[in-house]
């Protein structure tokens, strides 16, 4: 920021200064919603080893945004359409059975390449969106409107509600698909449903956080949480706590520094994951010298 706010050692007054600006309040609210949504959906994504699918869905924002600009639609519509279609394409081509997440990767790669190619095509047909490239990649955290926060809240409640409704069968189908199928759990339907929820979460959040950041929040906090605990409920709660901490810290520090929010959130998320990994390694060494 150009005003150059100064950081004092009095944390309370720092936070008060921060919250005096409506744009900061909106940013904090948006970041909190995004963090909770990404942490929960991401926990399942990491457990299912579908990070590649998640990454591909976040990349779909590119053809989504450029396609919407070309067709004269609102950008948000483009995001939801592109992510939804890609989720269906990945879900339909994916296999069911033992190694389905491994064999699915070829299909995902194809979807990603196709999406990028389409994005470039749309871009070459309409260059006006080029100016928004940085926003597309790194988000518009500090330019979030109150309406956007409300929209985000609605999407998050929908997506989290869906996760809550299918939570246990989804967990069953994720870790033990063969037995789940034998028990009558609709594994294939859950696979597609989860991809759609993932697509919804990615489309909603990447409009604000940018393509790179949504993926950071989707992967690092759940992965760190799963390294610490293998207990599902504890893991989910820890993942949410990590994501919130990373998002708030990133926003707070960005306010007082010259570097952008996206950079800070990514750095904190990365730092969190690396320190948990090192911590675990050190613990394992202490236990088995």
């Amino acid at each position: 920021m150009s005003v150059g706010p100064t950081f004092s050692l009095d944390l309370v007054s720092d936070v008060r200064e921060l919250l005096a600006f409506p744009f900061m309040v909106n940013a904090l609210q948006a970041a909190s919603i995004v963090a909770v949504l990404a942490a929960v959906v991401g926990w399942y994504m990491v457990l299912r080893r579908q990070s590649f699918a998640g990454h591909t869905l976040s990349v779909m924002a590119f053809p989504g945004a450029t396609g919407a600009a070309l067709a004269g639609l609102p950008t948000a519509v483009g995001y939801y359409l592109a992510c939804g279609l890609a989720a269906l394409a990945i879900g339909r081509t994916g296999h069911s059975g033992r190694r389905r997440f491994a064999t699915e990767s070829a299909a995902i790669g194809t979807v990603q390449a196709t999406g990028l190619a389409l994005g470039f095509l749309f871009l070459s047909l309409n260059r006006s969106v080029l100016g928004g490239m940085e926003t597309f990649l790194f988000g518009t955290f500090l330019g979030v409107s109150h309406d956007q926060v409300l929209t985000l809240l609605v999407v998050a409640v929908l997506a989290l509600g869906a996760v809550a409704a299918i939570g246990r069968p989804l967990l069953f189908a994720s870790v033990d698909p063969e037995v789940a199928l034998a028990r009558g759990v609709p594994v294939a339907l859950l696979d597609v449903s989860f991809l759609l929820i993932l697509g919804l979460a990615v489309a909603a959040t990447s409009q604000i956080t940018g393509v790179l950041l949504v993926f950071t929040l989707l992967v690092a906090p759940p992965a760190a949480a799963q390294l610490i605990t293998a207990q599902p409920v504890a893991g989910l709660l820890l993942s949410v706590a990590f994501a919130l901490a990373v998002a708030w810290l990133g926003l707070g520090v960005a306010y007082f520094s010259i570097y952008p929010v996206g950079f800070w959130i990514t750095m904190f998320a990365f730092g969190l994951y690396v320190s948990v990994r090192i911590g675990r390694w050190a613990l394992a060494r202490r236990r088995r010298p």
Partner: protein
Amino acid sequence: MTVPAGTAVTLESGGRSGDVAVALRGAAVTLGGQTVFSNVDLEVRRGEFVAVLGPNGAGKSTLMRTILGLVPLSAGSVRVLGHEPSETRSEIGYLPQRRSFDSETRIRGVDLVRLGLEGGRWGLPLAVTAGARARRRIERERVEEVISLAGAAAYATRPIGELSGGEQQRLLIAQALVRRPAVLILDEPLDSLDLPNQAIVAALVQRVCAVQGVAVLLVAHDVNPLLGYLDRVIYLAGGKALAGPVQEVITGPKLSELYGARIEVLRTSDGRLVVVGSPEAPHHHGHRH
């Protein structure tokens, strides 16, 4: 386990031992255009322990999946507790063949067993009413009980991926037993166990079978660890099946007829059976390469 009357009913399965649990009549399965087996007639009663034997590729797993309703029949019929298999899924405990979890699987053994009990339920596991809380407690006790029954209590709270193959197998047996199923389908449960543990698991399955009146179908490659416990065997080879008591089925003439080649069965002084001269993985339908 002492439980309040009424609530326990959800976990108990009805039926008396001696009733027909699984019935196949003239069953045939065609996969990828090739007949795996045909004309299989089979009846397994409650409280009966049946081993399913046969060379690799004979269709043992396919037969098990047929009874689970996961593979359609091309001819004949299959009935489980008098119903279509798809209607009785919650009454069947299933352990698929060679299922193992790699070291990155971040879920505890106890969670996996728990999923066997409640993994099919939709919605959040919120226990608000007194009845729901009581059920919750009964289910938790049931999970603990079945884990100690399988002798897996010492490592049930460790991430499943960190356990040895045999330890994983015991937890998976606990998972298959947790709902007190009327039919138990175990596809090579002795696979990754050492000899003493094979004997322990065989004895455990027989106890469950006799005490709870469960119909057990257990796929194995070696009949010897099971000899003291079995009621009958089903021998699958060459697309046909032969069922009956061990001493009637596992004989030179019977197996020679089934394989269409000269087979001898030797009996060692301690009663063990050795099948000699069986052709390496006989395929009645020839392979594609």
